[in-house]
């Protein structure tokens, strides 16, 4: 009787059933789409973060950035060339100069090996490894042979390209003093010193080896390098070639690519940590420590412990890092988190309210019916069960329709697969522009092209004789931009929870409606309609 009565009621009160089911379906569909897109955005954020911080990294510890030095003289971002720095050309009118420097990115602070040991000893830390993020800058080009004694003129030399590479092959021509012009090139790329003995966590845990071999434990102390595949392609480098870092030749032993082919890895070049520290003169220094916690539930505790122990460092969890993801991915994340979630809650609340109001209205309309059933001996429990059953089935119909509509919506999202760009702040050093200050006595007149970078150099090469001084501002941290196609994953859990919400809505409406029906006293129910 229960099933027949229920079927007849739903069938004969079709309008009410359809309205409640539509409300529930909309809510369920919206919840499914929002949850799936939200999961997709989270995956994309993890993907973007993994390309920089590595898979398995729960926490990163970075040194608090230092204010760049603005003192005059030969600062760390400055290339100095003396009178005898280059090779004089055969005609004696120009000299070729080249200088390579490997140093910590401007503005980056450093941690120490002792800090790493502290992290490793912290309770809840599964593994930790340190890296040293460096920037290799090579200045090379041809300078005119300057005549001493001429009155100094201020001039500026800018790079031909802010972060380009290679020297100009065209001969310098036309100097004010007739000695010929100048041609310079700046080559800059990022170098990451990684510990070859620890590969469980860190940037290299998120890469795949596309050629050669990775850095092995036996590579400690060796001049070997692994290149990012994008960088290797750009520079036309392959396994077996050499790359020069701080005037030292490194053998390229492997090429790595991001697990997500659309993005780059954390650095252009990877070398053993100890070698990076030696070449950069930063003995025992680290720029970041990558930490893996014993379990996800320990992350917050570990973060708090590390913040306490390393008060000068910045300790960030993946959740903190997710907030550093910017670009359209962040916008999508924000849209899903704000509009999507609130819209879901709103529609869900509206659907629940509609279901409850319709059920209450139905019970009120059926006062005589329920009064009659009570009069012929139906128990309260049976009547409540009947009302709750009807509401539950309405919720289930809505849930089923909503699941289908929601899945269709997710399918559309996955077919369209909107591409989201994610920018993640990283420790890669970008090379800024150069500002030039000619040394006393130099009279360069070659037009200085404007630097497009963000750095500015104001250093004066005072005290130099016979050669120009160049002060170049290195860009600080740069952003790694990744294009990620949004994929909204559907899990059984998402569907089950959405349908569960519809069932909950039905049960809630049924419980309230049933409660009202149970309160009807048969005599009053019959009297109220007499």
């Amino acid at each position, binding site marked *: *009787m229960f099933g027949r*009565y229920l079927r007849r009621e739903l069938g004969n009160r079709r309008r009410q059933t359809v309205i409640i089911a539509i409300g529930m379906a909309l809510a369920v569909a919206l919840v499914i789409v929002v949850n799936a897109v939200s999961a997709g955005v989270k995956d994309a954020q993890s993907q973007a973060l993994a390309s920089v911080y590595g898979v398995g990294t729960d926490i990163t510890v970075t040194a608090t950035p230092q204010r760049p030095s603005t003192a005059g003289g030969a600062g760390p971002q400055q290339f100095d060339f003396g009178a005898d720095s280059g090779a004089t050309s055969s005609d004696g009118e120009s000299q070729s100069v080249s200088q390579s420097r490997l140093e910590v990115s401007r503005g980056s602070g450093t941690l120490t090996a002792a800090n790493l040991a502290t992290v490793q000893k912290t309770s809840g830390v599964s593994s930790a490894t340190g890296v040293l993020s460096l920037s290799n800058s090579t200045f090379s080009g041809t300078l005119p042979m300057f005549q001493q004694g001429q009155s100094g003129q201020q001039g500026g030399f800018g790079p031909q390209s802010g972060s380009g590479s290679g020297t100009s092959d065209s001969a310098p021509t036309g100097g004010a003093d007739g000695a010929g012009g100048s041609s310079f090139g700046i080559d800059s790329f990022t170098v990451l010193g990684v510990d070859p003995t620890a590969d469980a966590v860190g940037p290299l845990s998120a890469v795949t080896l596309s050629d050669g071999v990775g850095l092995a434990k036996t590579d400690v102390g060796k001049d070997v390098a692994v290149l990012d595949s994008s960088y290797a392609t750009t520079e036309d480098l392959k396994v077996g070639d050499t790359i020069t870092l701080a005037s030292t030749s490194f053998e390229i032993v492997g090429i790595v690519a991001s697990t997500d082919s659309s993005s780059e890895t954390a650095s252009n070049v990877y070398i053993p940590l100890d070698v990076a520290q030696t070449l950069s003169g930063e003995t025992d220094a680290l720029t970041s420590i990558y930490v893996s916690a014993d379990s996800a539930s320990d992350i917050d505790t570990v973060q708090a412990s590390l913040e306490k122990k390393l008060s000068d460092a910045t300790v960030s969890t993946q959740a903190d890092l997710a907030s550093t993801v910017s670009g359209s991915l962040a916008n999508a994340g924000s849209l899903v988190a704000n509009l999507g979630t609130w819209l879901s809650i709103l529609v869900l609340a509206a659907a629940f309210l509609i279901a409850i109001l319709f059920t209450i209205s139905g019970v009120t309309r059926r006062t005589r*019916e329920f009064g009659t059933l009570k*009069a012929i001996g139906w128990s309260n429990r049976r009547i409540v069960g009947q009302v709750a059953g009807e509401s539950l089935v309405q919720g289930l119909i809505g849930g089923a329709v909503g699941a289908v509509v929601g899945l269709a919506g997710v399918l559309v999202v996955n077919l369209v697969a909107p591409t989201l760009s994610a920018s993640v702040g990283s420790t890669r050093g970008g090379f800024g522009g150069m500002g030039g200050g000619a040394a006393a006595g130099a009279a360069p007149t070659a037009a200085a092209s404007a630097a497009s970078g963000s750095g500015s150099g104001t250093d004066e090469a005072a005290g130099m004789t016979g050669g120009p001084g160049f002060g170049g501002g290195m860009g600080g941290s740069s952003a790694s931009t990744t294009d990620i196609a949004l994929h909204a994953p559907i899990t059984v859990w998402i569907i089950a929870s959405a349908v569960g919400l519809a069932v909950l809505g039905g049960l809630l409406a049924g419980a309230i409606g049933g409660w009202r029906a149970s309160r009807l006293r048969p005599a009053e129910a019959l009297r109220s309609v007499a």
Partner: protein
Amino acid sequence: MYELTDVTRVYKQKKRTVTALKDVTLTIPDGQMVAIQGPTGGGKSTLLQMLGALDRPSSGAIALDGKQLTKLGDAKLGAVRGSDIGIVFQGFNLIPTLTAQENVETALVPQRVPAAERARRARAALESVGLGERTDHLPGELSGGQQQRVAIARALVKEPRVLLADEPTGNLDEETRDEIMELLEGLWRDRGLTLIIVTHDSAVARRAQRRLHIKQGHVRDVA
């Protein structure tokens, strides 16, 4: 057999107190056909609700076959209604979404009668009221008289000892009224029921063995 002793029923309507029944003492033997008459608001329906175990008196005692209804809880009162008392309403009170047979079957649900037997007994009850051909009709597809026949079948399908009818012919024309009364009288005679009918209609009341008049909560036998 009904035994009512000093039954009083007082309602509170906002700030007003209404005494619907006042010290009613009454005995209705098994198998009697009783008509209850009286003016509107005199307490007819209240008395029927007391007899039908639909309500409890404010004071006094009601016993059905020795069972004190006033001392039973809601569930047990429901069980008494489900097994011993059949009720026919003026407005038929059929469930509009269920067919005639299904409406009749609802009366067997409290007794947990198996579905097949329920269907069989419902069809038999409908045949006994002359609606064997209309078992699959919805109430909306039946005339007033036919609907009341379905209601009578519903009241009788559980084979109660008492049949209470609240203005059973109030919504019917004269011809149909007579048909329904003949049906009720026939069932009363055939089944040995106690039949208690509340009615305004003297023509209906005159058919009863005993006539009670109720006015301002007081009940008296009409000679």
